[in-house]
């Protein structure tokens, strides 16, 4: 703190009085000597201790059994910390997957099987032209209905559970467990906090990186935040895991295995966070990790109903609304792509055929890649887009009346639809990997730009995960194919 350059020579045009004050301050600092900062802090601490001592009376004997400390010993222990963390998150996902199934089917029945035909009939009655009927009902309405039926149930279960954990005080313990590894990666321990925020929304996580003082470590936290699975990507993971991974085992184990698969992907994201932090702090962002103290707040019994209410309003409805806002235009775009033909083939077919070879190389397909391009504004609409495009490509009339129309969303039908589109277990696994490892959504990219103020680092933050995603899915696809040849 005590350096000469702190008091920069003032520029011209500064009033004499101000100049005099600064000069005097400069002179006095050297006269006072010692560490001014230290003296001030000490004066504050002494007074605070004296006043607190007079005002507060603590119990003579601390209670023999301290519940907080007992829980802390367990959840932050070297031995049990990580297993307990994984167990807790697995339980949360298992409840989500098991609980979301039935309401998802109800919603699909109402929105897709009942309301959609009614709208079609109504459209025909009032004599809508076929293109307007298609654009509005088969494009915009269906995309939105799909988003609601796929996303609402898991979100309505997952977010309240996650918020209950948060209000109880568990998240700082997770941060405590991860702190050591972050430090070893050359990053700031508080990065564990911004990562926790990222599990909700990456844009929020990027803003939360402000708690980190050092610009170097803050940049690392911002760039790696995308490796925390966000709101928009949880539903993709949960759906694909329950369709493909869960169906590999007997039905009674399905939910649990799917939950473990989702936890596995989330953990892989955490590992990627460490790895990329480690890489950055040893290449372009070299430096020492700074120390800090992390306060473990007391456990507080969450106010159950209020937490449920606020998490439904704040997160579930918020995210759902965002998804709907993006799904409406996306539905229109997808329908147009599927129905505007040039030389006998639709735009979507051209795009898909063009991207198919690249998709094949990384164990995905052209449909998924097109979906990821359409879904740059919001990850939430990836699955609906994939479904609509798959119907179009396979041309399976049993799933819908016309090109670009999504029907039949019961889980078994959805699985059948994917399989008709040539999906294998490899496609599912790589889709889960790619959903974790690709560019952040446009909102997050914009937030990164406003937070860093640098086009270069924004580009790095956007393209690095994508490059990693392509490399990982490519390697998995090649190894998978080699092994299946044997």
């Amino acid at each position, binding site marked *: 703190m005590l350096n000469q350059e702190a008091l920069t020579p003032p520029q011209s045009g500064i009033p004499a009085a101000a100049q005099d004050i600064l000069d005097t301050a400069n002179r006095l600092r050297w006269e006072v000597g010692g560490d001014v900062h230290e003296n001030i802090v000490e004066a504050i601490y002494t007074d605070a201790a004296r006043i607190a001592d*007079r005002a507060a009376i603590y119990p003579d004997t601390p209670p023999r059994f301290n519940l907080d400390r007992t829980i802390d010993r367990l959840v932050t222990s070297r031995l049990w910390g990580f297993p307990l963390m994984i167990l807790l998150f697995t339980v949360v996902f298992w409840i989500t997957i098991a609980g979301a199934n039935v309401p998802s089917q109800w919603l699909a029945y109402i929105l897709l099987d009942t309301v959609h035909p009614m709208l079609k009939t109504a459209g025909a009655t009032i004599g809508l032209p076929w293109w307007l009927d298609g654009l509005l009902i088969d494009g915009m309405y269906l995309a939105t209905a799909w988003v609601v039926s796929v996303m609402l149930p898991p979100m309505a279960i997952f977010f309240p559970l996650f918020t209950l954990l948060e209000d109880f005080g568990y998240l700082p313990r997770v941060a405590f467990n991860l702190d050591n590894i972050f430090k070893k990666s050359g990053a700031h321990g508080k990065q564990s906090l911004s990562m926790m925020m990222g599990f909700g929304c990456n844009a929020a996580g990027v803003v939360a990186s402000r708690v980190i003082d050092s610009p170097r470590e803050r940049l690392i936290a911002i760039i790696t935040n995308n490796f925390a699975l966000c709101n928009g990507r949880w539903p993709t993971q949960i759906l694909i895991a329950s369709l493909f991974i869960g169906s590999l085992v007997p039905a009674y184990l399905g939910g649990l295995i799917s939950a473990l698969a989702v936890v596995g992907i989330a953990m892989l994201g955490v590992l990627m966070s460490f790895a990329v932090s480690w890489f950055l702090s040893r290449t372009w962002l070299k430096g020492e990790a700074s120390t800090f103290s992390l306060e473990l707040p007391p456990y507080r019994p969450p106010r159950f109903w209020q937490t449920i209410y606020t998490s439904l309003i704040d997160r579930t409805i918020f995210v759902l609304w965002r998804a709907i806002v993006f799904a409406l235009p996306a539905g229109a775009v997808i329908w147009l792509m599927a129905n505007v033909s040039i030389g006998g083939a639709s735009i979507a077919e051209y795009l898909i055929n063009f991207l198919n070879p690249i998709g094949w190389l990384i164990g995905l397909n052209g449909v998924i890649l097109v979906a990821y391009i359409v879904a740059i504004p919001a990850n939430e609409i990836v699955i609906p887009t994939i479904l609509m495009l798959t119907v179009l490509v396979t041309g399976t009339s049993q799933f819908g009346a016309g090109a670009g129309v999504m029907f039949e969303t019961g889980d078994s039908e959805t699985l059948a639809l994917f399989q008709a589109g040539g999906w294998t277990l490899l496609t599912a696994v790589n889709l889960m990997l790619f959903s974790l490892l690709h560019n952040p959504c446009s909102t997050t990219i914009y937030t990164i730009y406003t937070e860093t103020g640098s086009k270069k680092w924004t580009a790095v933050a956007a393209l690095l995960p994508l490059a990693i995603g392509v490399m990982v899915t490519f390697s998995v696809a090649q190894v998978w194919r080699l092994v299946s040849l044997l």
Partner: protein
Amino acid sequence: MSSSIQLPAAHNCETCPAHNVGNLTKLGINMDNWDFVVALAGNPNTGKSTIFNALTGLRQHTGNWPGKTVSRAEGGFEYGGHRYKIVDLPGTYSLLSTSLDEEVARNFILFGQPDVTLIVTDATRLERNLNLVLQVLEITDRAVVALNLMDEARRHGITVDDRSLARDLGVPVVPTSARSKQGIPELLQAISQVATGAVVCKPHRLKNEPPALKHAIRELVSKIEAAFPGLPNARWVALRLLDGDQRIIEAINRGELGDLTRDDPGEDAAGTLVLQLQEAQHA
């Protein structure tokens, strides 16, 4: 100590105006034409956001972990015929370091010139919380301390004498349990009393610096007061200058400090300052 501090009612009294719930109108984010600005400061995880929600009727998400609020949130309420704008600042342990969140909080209390700074403290960790309270009281003399989490303190067998605390700090101290909305009426009363000037605070100022430092402060304060008469925190500015605080040096160079000498910055000035702060955050 001054007797001008009116201690808020510690026990429920049905006739007391503080218990007139009708006095409070939660305005949510509708906060145009405010009469007073209230800044909400405090250590992380002491319940600032909970108090913010209780006063504004907003439902800013609260979470049980430090660092939940990193940028400012704003809301409004109406009480006793006055409109208040309340700004929820990021939680910090101190105002002395240079991290972004501490600077946001510090700059708002200093340059935003809130009419009242409400400092939320954790009754179970009083000493550490007072470190921040004392730093805020160095900057502003219009403050109210909410002694929050009293329910938790009781659960741990800790008793806190809010009267003794109010005497020592020289500002109103209100025991609250914001989660269960206890103490909010008394808190509102204290805020309005400080805002309207019905209660004049005599905030605690540090006295036990080493003699050499004390001497330097005195010399510098006299120069600052001569240049900026009416500045409410000349002593604090002197301390920051001696500590080499770049932002304060800048404020002197740019003459910003002169703007703080007016008694009431008025709505426009406060509004401009908020804008400047937002720009500074992104700079």
